[in-house]
């Protein structure tokens, strides 16, 4: 019996310290921003959106980075979460807490149905099927005017009186942190280890007794549930739900975020998502005419990442500090 050393990368006390500083900073941020008048208000809105999109990116990474499953249809579950909140609050008069609690549930149900078919395929075929299902759902929402409002979307979602922009930021932050801890628990658990064996070597995983399809299915459902909560939160932030939330281009966002941030760590996609949103705003504010050229900047960023930092920003950091990637 050797020394029972930790199998995880030795994050240890230093990791916890950095985490604590970041959390304190995230709680202090809106209080500072609120002193800055109109600009501050705008940035509180932006940072709230950043938290939500970071959650969305992390949810995809459960299947992408940890499970090795490339999905082009993850926005479907984001959209289902958003429309759940929109419909429950606008049409059924449900309170926000109930709508937000049900968003991950309906998204998980959608993921269970879609995932049941998709996990029967692997690699590119899996990716194409997720794309097909995602676009199918998009078309249904687009066409079904009487229920979803079609391409008009659903506007004027009620906002509870007490929910000031700062309060909503804190709500999103707390939910983000809870989800972060939950995902951290999942990826470090026996389940998480099993998911990684499938990513590493699907054939061998079968021959150690893993029912690969079933575990991929469970993972797909979990990822869908977290995406659903993110969609619900964005719906309430914008006070509308629209078909764009389900579009395949929305599915690309967390993939790009994972590439830029690094998909073999939990925080990588969150960092990538935040950096991309920040850069996009900087580009747009530099000159209004640059709005149309964002795609060019994005392309250059991706090119740089793929060529010089294949492990994303987190991989780059690990390389510079001499830590190994998992």
């Amino acid at each position, binding site marked *: 019996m050797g020394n029972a050393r930790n199998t995880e990368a030795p994050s240890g006390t230093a990791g916890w310290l950095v985490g604590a500083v970041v959390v304190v900073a995230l709680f202090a941020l809106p209080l500072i921003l609120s002193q800055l008048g109109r600009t501050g208000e705008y940035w509180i809105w932006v940072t709230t959106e950043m938290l939500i999109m970071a959650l969305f990116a992390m949810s995809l990474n459960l299947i992408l980075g940890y499970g090795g499953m490339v999905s082009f249809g993850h926005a479907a579950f984001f959209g289902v979460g958003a429309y759940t909140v929109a419909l429950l609050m606008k049409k059924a008069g449900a309170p926000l807490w109930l709508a937000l609690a049900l968003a991950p549930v309906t998204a998980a149900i959608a993921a269970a149905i879609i995932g049941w078919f998709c996990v029967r395929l692997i690699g590119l075929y899996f990716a194409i099927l997720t794309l097909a299902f995602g676009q199918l759902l998009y078309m249904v929402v687009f066409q079904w005017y009487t229920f979803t409002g079609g391409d008009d979307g659903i506007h004027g979602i009620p906002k509870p009186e007490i929910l000031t922009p700062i309060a909503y930021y804190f709500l999103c932050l707390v939910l983000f942190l809870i989800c972060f801890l939950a995902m951290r628990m999942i990826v470090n658990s026996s389940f998480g280890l099993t998911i*990684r064996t499938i990513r590493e070597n699907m054939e061998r995983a079968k021959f150690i007794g893993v029912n690969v399809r079933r575990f991929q299915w469970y993972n797909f459902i979990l990822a869908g549930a977290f995406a659903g909560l993110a969609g619900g939160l964005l719906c309430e932030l914008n006070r509308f739900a629209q078909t764009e939330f389900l579009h395949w281009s929305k599915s690309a966002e967390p993939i790009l975020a994972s590439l830029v941030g690094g998909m073999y760590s939990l925080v990588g996609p969150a960092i990538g998502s935040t950096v991309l949103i920040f850069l996009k705003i900087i580009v747009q504010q530099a000159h209004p005419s640059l709005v149309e050229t964002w795609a060019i900047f994005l392309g250059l960023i991706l090119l740089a990442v793929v060529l010089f930092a294949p492990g994303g920003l987190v991989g780059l950091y690990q390389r510079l500090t001499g830590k190994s990637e998992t």
Partner: protein
Amino acid sequence: MADHVLQIEGLSKSFEGSQVFNNISFSVDKGELSSIIGPNGAGKTTLFNLMTGYHVPDSGRVLFMGKNIAGRQPYDIVRLGIARAFQRTNIFPRMSVLENLLSTVITKNGGNLNVVTPSAKLKSAHERSYEILESVGLADVAHRQSGTLAHGNQKRLDIAVALALEPQLLLLDEPTAGMSPEERWQTVELVQRLWEDLKITMLFIEHDMDIVFKISQKVRVLCYRTLLAEGTPAEISSNEQVIEAYLGEEV
């Protein structure tokens, strides 16, 4: 019937019209250390694939402990008690050596639906993993990324993973392939020692006739889509048919 761990009955398999096996039958006794030899392309690995659920036979039965397992899923067959190590090393390359074992031990114990307990804190699974690593001589490199190990050690890890499944029948597909002569005999000693210690049934595929004749109690020769011969090393090495068809001028 009594002491057969495995019975192959009338097994046939074709791929895209070309027949690999035609009506093969044989039995493996409990506790036996035996080998399968044959020229390249004789279907030795395919035979393992049929036993472990990777391929489904066209006809015939694979009885394991009296139960037909032909056509069942690999993960199902593993749970019944057949484990295999692969010809081309088949591990989880970007995970540590310990994690390779840990994930297998956890799966074997049916604990991989646990989403709460950190896998790093599962004490008994860790102890069991170290125990197996020590038995194959890999405990020193437990924290190395397994894909960075030397080829010989990766093959050992592959065997260790199979052992962690506590099989009743262990299938080893060319356990010494690609090794230096020195590593080969170390591996042979390891296989023989494990067989003596664990008292499990082992069936291995091997090209090196010195190894085959040294450690097998029984040798089976696959050739021309059939089982050409079956017997003790002495019987096989003096079998006219085998010499003509396979061993040739070598012996």
